[in-house]
């Protein structure tokens, strides 16, 4: 059971006792007064500013058992204050005072794991205030009550707020928790490993005193239990709990420690500081902000914010090696990573520059090394400017939380001594994840380390991208010369066969260097089976094999929730999740949140409020609530486009359109009502809360379903709503526009990974857990399935570094070149990941691999499989598969009737090939929202507009360069990115192409390009050449003009075949087809053999056939999809056919 469920239970229990006193349970003040009586407390309402309130809104005084509250606001507001303090009285020891910020019953239990919330929520005070808020909410309006009011009595959030007097935000949050999070029931708790009886290695670690201590704890050895025991013993010996500092690396680990401490030391746990290094750093920054020259509460920038800072100052950045005109944001992400990595090593911009200059000054440096040095110098310059920009905003980034604090502690004796006196006993969990900066922070506080106790396992070091290095485990003896190093000896988790399998790996692992040899006694004894390896030809077969294995284990008594599939990559995880769900196996997997159907529905709702063309109707119309046919959506879309008012203003007229189906008309009328009162400047949270709770049955329906897929959908929506609560401070436009832009950017930069984490409140569902190996750290399961054990898949191939650090920056890499060190670190991490994956399993470990690549070539097994002795691995020679149900295999064809004057052109066919679904939206439904294009695409648009002008002008005369420039300038200042940071670069790029376009016209007399029909078996393609005319020597020509450069295998592109066939159709020779590439000034004849032409014709035939069959599948690409105008509506299509006529 998660910690908040325990709190909610306490609140419900008190509510029950209070409500039993013959009161109106929806009268908030009566309810709190009854609870006050029940608990024997004293309640006093005092005027605001009364000295007894001590500048707070409310307080609980433990000595007098008294709650004092400000006598302001509505009755329900005051009741909420009292309920919050009741939470403290019931849950927490000690008196407490609560400010206005502390009392926020609308705050979610789990904030979106992005930005400040990722760091802040685990400060002890913040945690207690959050607990009191959750308590207050549940006490005043228990989940069951709010659920009943909404689902049975049919009340909206506003109606419930009106009835109870509670703030709307509080009611909404309570409803979302009650309706969207799966209810807990007895028996939902998982079994954990057996409890040890006597463990001398744990006992030694617990009682150790008088010297720095490092405990090497292999998988399943009970390190957390040992850590908790040590704290218990310290407190029993008389150590002040408030002097104990426990540091870890993830909020999840911190939360688990807090829960376990609260269970073991209920009176003292709240005094012990438990949190992440970053949270501790933030606390010290807030405490010593004046010394650090910050404001008292500086804003914290996450990676997205950091990238936005760089984008804001783009004009000033001296980008040469790291300039990407196509998409500047892509390279800025890598630059921010390089800066962050520098901070992990406590390297400031000046030191970075010195290291880079040293590389430049190396007399033996060859050209490559000099370029590497220049790249580092460029990063140093950007780092300088970045720091100045962040400081000017009074902010800190994640790296600063450790770096700035560490440097302060090292330089300021007063601050350091203060810290040492307050935090006298330090325990660190997951020490293998420490980076150099946090190791030095620790050293500054721990001094000689006499009271420092750390636990970790270098073989589970899987966060090297954060600067973590097992070198810090080895350096512990150097950092603390009197250190004692020991290890835990008993594995409580896994069967002897599984322990044997992963311990056999240990000696071969790079991370084992310098560590004690791994020797574990498996306390569980022999398990039911050996780890097994199943081989399949393709990934589809592998999915089917995993499904079969899951069901087989289920039949043998292993619940779904006790099984996990651990993948190396998110992409593969998504595919396996879909495959299992298609076979009726419930999965606990959110996947990429913004690419889920249910979330895209809500993103489309948001989009409809701000997109003037209302393209989102295509997806919204598909929702059962509206039931539009494809034709209805098309008609509505065309109508909106014909109006001069935005879509939001037209909604009320849509239901009257001619040609709508009856259901469509009703649906559009309903949509108009659902959007009544919505304005474009509304916040995303406000719109979605109103839409979900007050206008529709979405939450109601989800709450009443017991299907796992519906429950996961509800959890995803809950997670998404949490995300929308936070407003980004960057970007332009309305709040929703900014949010939608932020979503696109997060997907493009892969910043939304943390949102894939299933909230703690949903972890009890009986569904197979799907997660990456990284995500499985610290967890264990009865059965673990690890697919993808083929070469280049696991271990993943090393892909190099985009922004390599300067030589000498990474401590521990001395002696190796930067690329060699990075490659070694990558290899070691892959080994550790496999080690972690293997060691998660208790009884069953199932490994899988595929034997064929996509193209049919053979695929080698993962090198890691060779590390497992054959006696410990059972090869499954005839692994079984679970077939897909028949209806899962339907192709989803769409019947399309185009206008009489609609033709398949060469351009459209290219679009169809690139992504048939995007083609469908753009060319069939004629959608295309007015979203912000990139400067690169704007430049391209200007160039093509210029080429069209040039084509027209050339019909009468060939314009000279001056006239061409003048025409281009007009286009540029009308449509180009002339106010962008790289405007001059884009302009220079474009005008160079303008130059060549003019030159390439010399000696050609142009005519109006005619449309040439090229007929195929499966359809006709209309080819409209870029240029048509007569060249002096070559005669009549049709020419394809591209702005880019000529690739080596340029004519492999079937579009050139179309030009050859078009030339034939025009009665010209094959040689009449020509190509012009403006970037590298190449003009030539298209040269293709008969065989090549035949092959390409076959390809075109396939494309035309698929089009004719109405096949418009999506083609997912991580870079182009977030930039696609149809990103939020993809891949939804309402049922039925569409006719453009």
């Amino acid at each position: 059971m998660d910690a908040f469920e325990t709190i909610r239970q306490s609140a419900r229990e008190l509510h029950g006792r209070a409500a039993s006193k013959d009161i109106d349970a929806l009268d908030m003040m009566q309810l709190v007064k009854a609870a006050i009586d029940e608990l024997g407390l004293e309640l006093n309402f005092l005027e605001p500013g009364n000295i007894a309130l001590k500048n707070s809104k409310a307080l609980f005084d433990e000595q007098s058992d008294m709650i004092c509250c400000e006598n302001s606001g509505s009755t329900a507001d005051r009741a909420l204050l009292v309920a919050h303090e009741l939470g403290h009285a019931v849950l927490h020891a000690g008196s407490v005072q609560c400010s206005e910020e502390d009392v926020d019953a609308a705050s979610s239990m789990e904030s979106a794991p992005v930005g400040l919330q990722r760091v802040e929520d685990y400060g002890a005070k913040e945690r207690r205030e959050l607990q009191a808020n959750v308590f207050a909410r549940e006490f005043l309006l228990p989940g069951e009550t709010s659920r009943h009011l909404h689902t049975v009595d049919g009340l909206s959030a506003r109606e419930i707020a009106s009835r109870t007097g509670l703030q709307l935000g509080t009611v909404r949050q309570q409803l979302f928790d009650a309706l969207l999070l799966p209810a807990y029931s007895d028996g939902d708790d998982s079994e954990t490993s057996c409890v040890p009886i006597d463990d001398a290695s744990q006992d030694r670690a617990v009682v150790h005193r008088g010297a720095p201590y490092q405990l090497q704890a292999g998988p399943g050895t009970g390190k957390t239990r040992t850590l908790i025991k040590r704290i218990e013993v310290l407190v029993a010996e008389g150590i002040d709990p408030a002097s104990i500092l426990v540091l870890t690396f993830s909020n999840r680990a911190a939360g688990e420690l807090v829960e376990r401490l609260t269970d073991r030391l209920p009176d003292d746990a709240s005094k012990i500081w438990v949190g992440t290094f970053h949270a501790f750093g933030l606390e010290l920054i807030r405490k010593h902000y004046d010394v650090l020259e910050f404001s008292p509460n500086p804003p914290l920038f996450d990676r997205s914010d950091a990238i936005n800072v760089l984008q804001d100052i783009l004009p000033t950045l001296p980008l040469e090696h790291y300039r990407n005109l196509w998409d500047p944001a892509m390279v800025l992400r890598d630059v921010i990573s390089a800066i962050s990595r520098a901070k992990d090593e406590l390297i400031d911009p000046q030191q970075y520059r010195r290291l880079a200059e040293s590389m430049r000054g190396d007399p033996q440096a060859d050209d490559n090394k000099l370029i590497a040095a220049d790249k580092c110098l460029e990063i140093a310059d950007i780092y300088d400017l970045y720091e100045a920009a962040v400081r000017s905003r009074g902010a800190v980034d994640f790296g600063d939380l450790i770096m700035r604090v560490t440097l302060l502690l090292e330089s300021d004796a007063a601050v350091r001594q203060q810290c040492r006196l307050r935090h006298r006993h330090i325990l660190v969990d997951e020490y293998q994840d420490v980076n150099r900066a946090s190791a030095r922070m620790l050293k500054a506080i721990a001094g000689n380390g006499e009271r420092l106790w750390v636990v970790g396992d270098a073989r589970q070091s899987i966060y090297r991208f954060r600067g973590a290095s097992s070198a810090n485990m080895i350096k512990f003896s150097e950092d603390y010369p009197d250190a004692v190093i020991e290890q835990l000896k008993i594995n409580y988790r896994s069967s002897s066969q599984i322990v044997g399998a992963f311990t056999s790996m240990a000696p071969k692992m790079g991370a084992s260097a310098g560590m004690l040899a791994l020797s574990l006694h498996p306390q569980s004894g022999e398990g039911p089976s050996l780890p097994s390896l199943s081989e399949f030809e393709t990934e589809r077969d592998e999915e089917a094999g995993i499904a079969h294995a899951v069901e087989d284990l289920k039949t043998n008594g292993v619940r779904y929730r006790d099984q996990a599939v651990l993948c190396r990559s998110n992409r593969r995880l998504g595919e396996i999740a879909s495959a299992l769900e298609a076979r009726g196996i419930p999965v606990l997997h959110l996947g990429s949140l913004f690419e889920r159907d249910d979330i895209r529905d809500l993103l489309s709702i948001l989009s409809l409020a701000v997109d003037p063309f209302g393209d989102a109707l295509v997806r919204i119309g598909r929702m059962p609530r509206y039931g539009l046919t494809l034709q209805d959506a098309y008609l509505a879309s065309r109508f909106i486009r014909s109006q001069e008012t935005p879509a939001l203003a037209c909604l009320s007229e849509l239901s009257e359109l001619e040609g709508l189906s009856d259901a469509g008309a009703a649906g559009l009328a309903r949509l108009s009502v659902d959007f009544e009162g919505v304005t474009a400047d509304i916040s995303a949270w406000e719109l979605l809360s109103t839409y979900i709770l007050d206008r529709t049955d979405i939450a109601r329906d989800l709450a009443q379903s017991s299907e796992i897929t519906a429950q996961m959908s509800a959890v995803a929506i809950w997670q998404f709503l949490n995300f929308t609560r936070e407003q980004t401070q960057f970007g332009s436009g309305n709040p929703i526009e900014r949010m939608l832009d932020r979503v696109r950017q997060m997907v493009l930069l892969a910043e939304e990974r943390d949102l894939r984490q299933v909230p703690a409140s949903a972890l009890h569902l009986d569904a197979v857990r799907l997660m990456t190996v990284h995500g499985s750290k610290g967890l264990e399961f009865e059965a673990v399935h690890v697919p993808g054990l083929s070469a280049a898949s696991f271990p993943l191939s090393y892909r190099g570094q985009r922004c390599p650090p300067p030589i000498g920056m990474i401590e521990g890499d001395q002696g190796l070149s930067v690329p060699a060190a990075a490659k070694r670190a990558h290899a070691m991490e892959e080994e550790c990941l496999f080690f972690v994956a293997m060691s998660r399993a208790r009884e069953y470990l199932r490994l899988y691999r595929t034997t064929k690549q996509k193209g049919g070539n053979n695929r080698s097994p993962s090198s890691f499989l060779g590390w497992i002795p054959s006696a410990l691995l059972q090869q499954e020679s005839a692994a079984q598969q679970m077939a897909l149900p028949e209806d899962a295999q339907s192709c989803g064809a769409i019947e399309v009737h185009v206008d009489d004057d609609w033709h398949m052109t060469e351009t459209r066919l290219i679009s169809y090939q690139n992504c048939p679904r995007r083609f469908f939206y753009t060319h069939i439904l004629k959608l295309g929202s007015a979203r912000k294009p990139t400067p690169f695409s704007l430049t391209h648009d200007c160039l093509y507009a210029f080429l069209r002008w040039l084509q027209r002008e050339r019909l009468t005369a060939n314009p000279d360069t001056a006239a061409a420039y003048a025409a281009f300038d007009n286009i540029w200042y009308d449509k180009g990115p002339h106010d962008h940071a790289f405007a001059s670069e884009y302009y220079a790029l474009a005008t160079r192409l303008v130059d060549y376009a003019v030159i390439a016209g010399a000696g050609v007399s142009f005519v109006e390009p005619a449309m040439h029909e090229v007929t195929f078996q499966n359809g006709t393609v209309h080819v409209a050449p870029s240029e048509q005319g007569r060249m002096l020597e070559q005669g009549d020509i049709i020419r394809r003009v591209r702005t880019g450069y000529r690739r080596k295998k340029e004519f492999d592109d079937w579009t050139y075949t179309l030009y050859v066939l078009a030339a034939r159709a025009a009665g010209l020779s094959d040689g009449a087809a020509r190509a012009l590439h403006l970037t590298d000034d190449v003009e030539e004849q298209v040269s293709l053999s008969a065989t090549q032409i035949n092959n390409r014709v076959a390809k075109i035939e396939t494309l035309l056939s698929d089009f004719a069959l109405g096949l418009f599948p999506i083609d997912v690409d991580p870079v182009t999809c977030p930039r696609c105008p149809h990103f939020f509506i993809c891949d939804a299509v309402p049922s039925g056919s569409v006719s453009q006529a």
Partner: protein
Amino acid sequence: MTQGTIDAEFAKICHEMILANEIPNPDMLDTYVKQYPQYSVELTDFAVALALDVLAPLYEEVDDAPERATPAVSRTMSHFQNALFDAQQKGDVRRLETKQVLAHMQNAANPIAALSKAGFKGFACRLDVNSVLAAKLRDRQIASDTMPAAFITMVAQCIPEDIDIVAAHLMAAPDQTLRARQFHKADGKPGNSEQESFEDAVKNSGLTEDQKRKLLAY
């Protein structure tokens, strides 16, 4: 053990820490806290203040002590001024801010805060006040120079405690209850440093009319 004994005990510990003539270190603090767990918060704060006095003498952690002193307070101050003088005579090179040290001394002596829950309720009942006013007395939120002497005597009787101790307590700076909150964002910054007059306290503590009348009659 009376509050007087407790105060003397705490004073003795602080005296020892001063005379140790070194910057307090974690080991020393642990030893004291183990011996006197009831003063864990105060000892930690005092050790930090001592350290800051040496390492960052301009660092302001607490408010100034009140300027006027009752006889009891004067005796307390006198005791530590002697200790301070002794330390300086021995060549103690530290620059101790007397007020800061004394403020810590004074804050340690709170006879009302030392009461159990039942003791506190009994105290309030005997004094015929509600918990709000009793807490204001505990937290020194009522200006002592506005309190009738007879009332102070009654307070002492109702605790019960020696009048000098009670007077010293009431004269001291408002109790920084926030120091007890380990995780408060602003270390040492008090949440209540204000005081009000006795009459105002009686009028706006939510007392009954009868209670107000009795108190104002002192």
